[in-house]
């Protein structure tokens, strides 16, 4: 026989003074001891950790933003550099073509000048040569005359033939 028969006394609905006392004691102990030395510190530690995590996340976000800014700036600088490079190349090209053009013109002028000079020189040389020829001719004439004078020509015909012979000789020269 396991179960003993009792009159039905629904005792749990009658608040026992002793149990009220002990419940108060244990609840106050629970509240004061565990509340003060555990719930408080745990809540504060959790709060600190939460702030830490939030701080770390914020920091990461800031770093990310900064990085993005930096990248944008870099790209801007790069774009600027590209633009500058293009401008420089263009300028160089311009300068080059100008220079070539100028050089061409200069060369042309120079050539013109050289040709002109050469022509002038040739003219001068020609004039000088003519003068020399004239002088030579004069000298030769004088020489011929001298030679004629030295040879005692008998006749006029002989004289003329000789003169013509001399003249031919000169021409041959």
């Amino acid at each position, binding site marked *: 026989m396991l179960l003993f028969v009792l009159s039905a006394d629904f005792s749990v609905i009658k608040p026992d003074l002793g149990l009220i006392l*002990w419940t108060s004691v*244990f*609840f106050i102990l629970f509240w004061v001891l565990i509340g003060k030395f555990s719930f408080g510190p745990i809540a504060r530690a959790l709060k600190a950790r939460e702030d830490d995590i939030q701080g770390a996340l914020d920091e990461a976000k800031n770093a990310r933003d900064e990085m993005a800014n930096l990248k944008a700036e870099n790209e801007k600088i790069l774009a600027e550099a590209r633009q500058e490079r293009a401008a420089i190349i263009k300028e160089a090209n311009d300068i080059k073509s100008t220079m070539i053009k100028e050089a061409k013109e200069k060369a042309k002028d120079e050539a013109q000048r050289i040709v002109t000079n050469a022509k002038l020189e040739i003219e001068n040389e020609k004039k000088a040569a003519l003068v020399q020829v004239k002088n030579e001719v004069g000298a030769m004439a004088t020489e011929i005359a001298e030679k004629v004078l030295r040879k005692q020509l008998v006749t006029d015909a002989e004289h003329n033939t000789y003169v013509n012979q001399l003249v031919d000789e000169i021409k041959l020269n």
Partner: protein
Amino acid sequence: MQLRTFLTTILILTAGAVFADHGDDHKSSDQTQTHQQNGHDHNHDHDTSHDHGEEGHGDAHHDDCGGHHGDTFDPGATAFHHIADANVYSIGPLQIPLPCILYNKESGFDIFMSSKFGFDRLGHGDGHYAYKGYVLDGGTVKLVADANFPKEKVEIKGIRHDEDANAYVCLGDNEYPTYAKSTADFGLFGGGITPFYDFSITKNVVSMFIVFMFCLWLFLKVARAYKDRQGKAPKGVQSLIEPVFLFIQDEVCKPFLGDKYMRYQPFIMSLFFFILGLNLFGQIPFFGGSNVTGNLAFTCVLAIFAFLVTNLSGNKHYWEHIFWMPGVPAWVKTILTPVEVLGVFIKPLTLMLRLFANITAGHMVIIIFVSLIFIFSQNGANAIGGWGTVIPSGLLSLFMMSIELLVAFIQAFVFAILTASYIGAAIEDHHHEEAH
């Protein structure tokens, strides 16, 4: 929130009606059982020894003063016995004596172990001895009301109960009436102040002590872990407690208490974890099965604390809303003020009754399911009926205990969240222009 309170009140009233019906059932089943056992030897002494008149027809066990047990099985009484507080601690059938701290107006304080009553180590806490005028009746100490009763340790023949659950001590040829311990129900539920007060370390007190010490150890360990492992991820028992702690903090404390949650959080957490711990402790089979949170004394104390914390933190707006609701006509105020004043007391009252009713009902349902075995076996007479019920009863009990595990959390949570909402309403800064 108002709707929830209303529904809860209806639930409690229904539960009360069920309890009342249950009492009737139990009486009638007693009668039928007695009818079945007509001719049994117990029916001899009842007509001769007591003058119960027309009431004496039933309850063979009530007349049983010889200390031998009746053959009827009363599931209601069994349930009441198992959910009751006791001056012995029971682990399975083993009864462990506990310290008794008793006071009566004549002899003052008496402190002794309940083993002085000489109860059976494998029994139900019925003392075979009276000691200093006290007896142990089903695990509960009672004071003999007669001044002629011997004060030294004497062997008693037994304890008889009448229809109203009054206990009579049989010593020699005499019967002595007894006083139950004083209770704070003001006679409302059949108790009241008697000349005898019991401040013993009872089964419930031991349970509270065990749960308190366990929680102290656990939470100090966790708090130390937070200190030692600062800036590291939680580990071990710390990560077991943290989600529960954060759940209460984020779902209960912060939404209701706002910025001042840190001030009230230890109180809310204490309520939650103390109730949860005791709810779960009471669910451990054979380990006392103490029904602390299903005892009105316990829930009453917690409700009083909730009441005190709420009303002592109440600000000007809170009291203004109770006594002189702003923004309504004067004649409405004459109706509103009494309602609001009543509400101040009804709120903790519902807290008290809700927890009590839920946990007590859960314990009782499990006991009744287990009792099915004894009901169907006709208390040992019908072996086939008994063995046949073992598996269905076990399954039902298993199902009920799973539900009770859930209820243990839900009720602790509900107590905490409602207390937080009451405190939150008391400390809230109202903005009248917007609210009305």
